[in-house]
């Protein structure tokens, strides 16, 4: 059924290939976010290692997949995803959240300055420390960044649910992507609002990241506050129906 509707779409003159008609998935719900690509479009394979594997090493499935991709239509790769070895999806997501008004250059430069600041601070500590402590000090800014964000992720969240004319804050398990989003959002708002007047963003961010890495600091406190609220509203957990 779906194939015939797609074929009909192809035969329409004047319409570009792959433009999807508005498909209503559920009655009463409209799609808010959609892409201009049809379902037949495959995601681009950006990984360099995938293409470097010599033909002899491929299994049957992988050979079949390669042949298949030769005939399929593939979406265009976004400009932000590179095949660079130094690329990090977490950093890209964080820069997108820091960006204001589409100024990606500024956001990216702030992030690189933050990583440099973190690195220099850790090197200072390393040179000042004794031999045993030197083994414990982490100098890689990327591990510090990832660990700090992981430490800031809440385990459980609150969702406002309407019942009997009132909104109740109900504790709810959060999906992975929601948790990562909340950690990054809290970090950015904290650095933007509680910053002393003349301090620059990279310095404040590096401070907050280092404190979150050691499980102290205001962002971790906010996570604990969220957990305490969830614990306090434990009785309302029955209002959740999913």
């Amino acid at each position, binding site marked *: 059924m779906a194939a015939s509707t797609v074929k009909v779409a192809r035969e329409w003159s004047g319409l570009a290939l792959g433009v999807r008609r508005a498909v209503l998935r559920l009655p009463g719900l409209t799609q808010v976010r959609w892409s201009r690509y049809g379902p037949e479009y495959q995601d681009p394979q950006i990984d360099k290692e995938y293409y470097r594997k010599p033909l002899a090493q491929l299994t049957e499935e992988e050979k079949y997949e390669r042949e298949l991709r030769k005939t399929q239509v593939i979406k265009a790769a976004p400009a932000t995803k590179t095949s660079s*070895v*130094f690329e990090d999806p977490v950093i890209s997501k964080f820069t997108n959240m820091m960006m204001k008004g589409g100024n990606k250059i500024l956001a990216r430069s702030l992030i690189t300055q933050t990583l*440099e600041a973190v690195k*220099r601070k850790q*090197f*200072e500590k390393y*040179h000042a420390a004794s031999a045993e402590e030197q083994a414990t000090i982490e*100098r890689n800014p*990327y591990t510090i960044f990832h660990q700090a964000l992981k430490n800031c992720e809440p385990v459980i969240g609150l969702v406002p649910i309407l019942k009997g004319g009132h909104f109740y804050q109900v504790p709810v398990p959060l999906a992975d992507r929601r948790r990562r989003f909340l950690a990054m959002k809290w970090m950015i708002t904290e650095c933007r609002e509680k910053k002393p007047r003349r301090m620059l963003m990279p310095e404040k961010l590096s401070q907050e990241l280092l404190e979150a890495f050691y499980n102290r600091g205001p962002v971790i406190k906010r996570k604990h506050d969220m957990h305490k609220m969830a614990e306090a509203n434990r009785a309302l957990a029955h209002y959740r129906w999913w």
Partner: protein
Amino acid sequence: IMLKGMTRLVSRVHKAKHGEQHVGQHYSISVQELKTAFPHGLPPRFALQVKTFNEACLMVRKPALELLHYLKNTNFAHPAVRYVLYGEKGTGKTLSLCHIIHFCAKQDWMILHIPDAHLWVKNCRDLLQSTYNKQRFDQPLEASVWLKNFKTANERFLSQIKVQDKYVWNKRESTEKGSPLAEVVEQGITRVRNATDAVGVVLRELKRQSSLGGFRLLVAVDGVDALWGRTTLKREDKSPIAPEELALIYNLRKMVKNDWQGGAIVLTVSQTGSLFKPRKAYLPQELLGKEGFDTLDPFIPILVSNYNPKEFESCIQYYLENNWLQHEKAHTEEGKKELLFLSNRNPGLLERLCAYL
């Protein structure tokens, strides 16, 4: 002084023995020597690197070696030769100049180092009308700061050199003929209003006396294109000031002329601090302008270019030895190829890339 390179070499005996085979290897300068040889300060990114690694390591490169060779074979009876280091942004002109200055300081030359001439033609808070010449302007802050640093750099010479004229500063103070140069410098530091004139006196005395041969003088100016360009400074009635109306610049121009013997003049032209010059300009003709080029005319240009493959490898090895490249992928071949592509072997860009990796 230790030389670190791709093959872990043992300590060098004397820096004068740097030769062709040491291209690409690093040598370190101890922290005390930094304070005496570079009181004005190193370029800010390099100073950060020195602070982080707790050691200052410069790479031995061909332009600097060429200049050292010329300096070792200078004939001090002939007028001073002018060398101009030029190149694109970030190729290492300022650090090559620092290498030369350190070498000359080790050889006991007198160092006249202006870290950045562009700072004297822009962003000046207080301009006073000069006491010596009504047409010119004084810059007390910059002059006094420079005199303080000059004192730390050349302590031992200041007591030996004697002034050959009487200088009257104001009704109560004057310097007699035959008193040591240190007094003039003290006068400039304590009486900030006369600091610019003190600088002028110092320059004139050094020029006169280096021809007599008691000491060898090295004039090292970074950003010499500021002397002949335009300034962003304005008078009270908002009319622009030309560089020759600033007393510091006027005296410095006299210093850079090659009518004295007994030393050498090493200059750098750079677009980074320059005013009203296009971003892609790096040749001496473009940056100095017609007037500057004609004044400096018989000079030896030395091109400072990007790293060659050996120097690039050596730089990456240096960062790896200091554990500066912390990213896991930076140690691999893939990572190095990527760094090469992104930086195009430009030293400045490579430093900035490795800072956050």
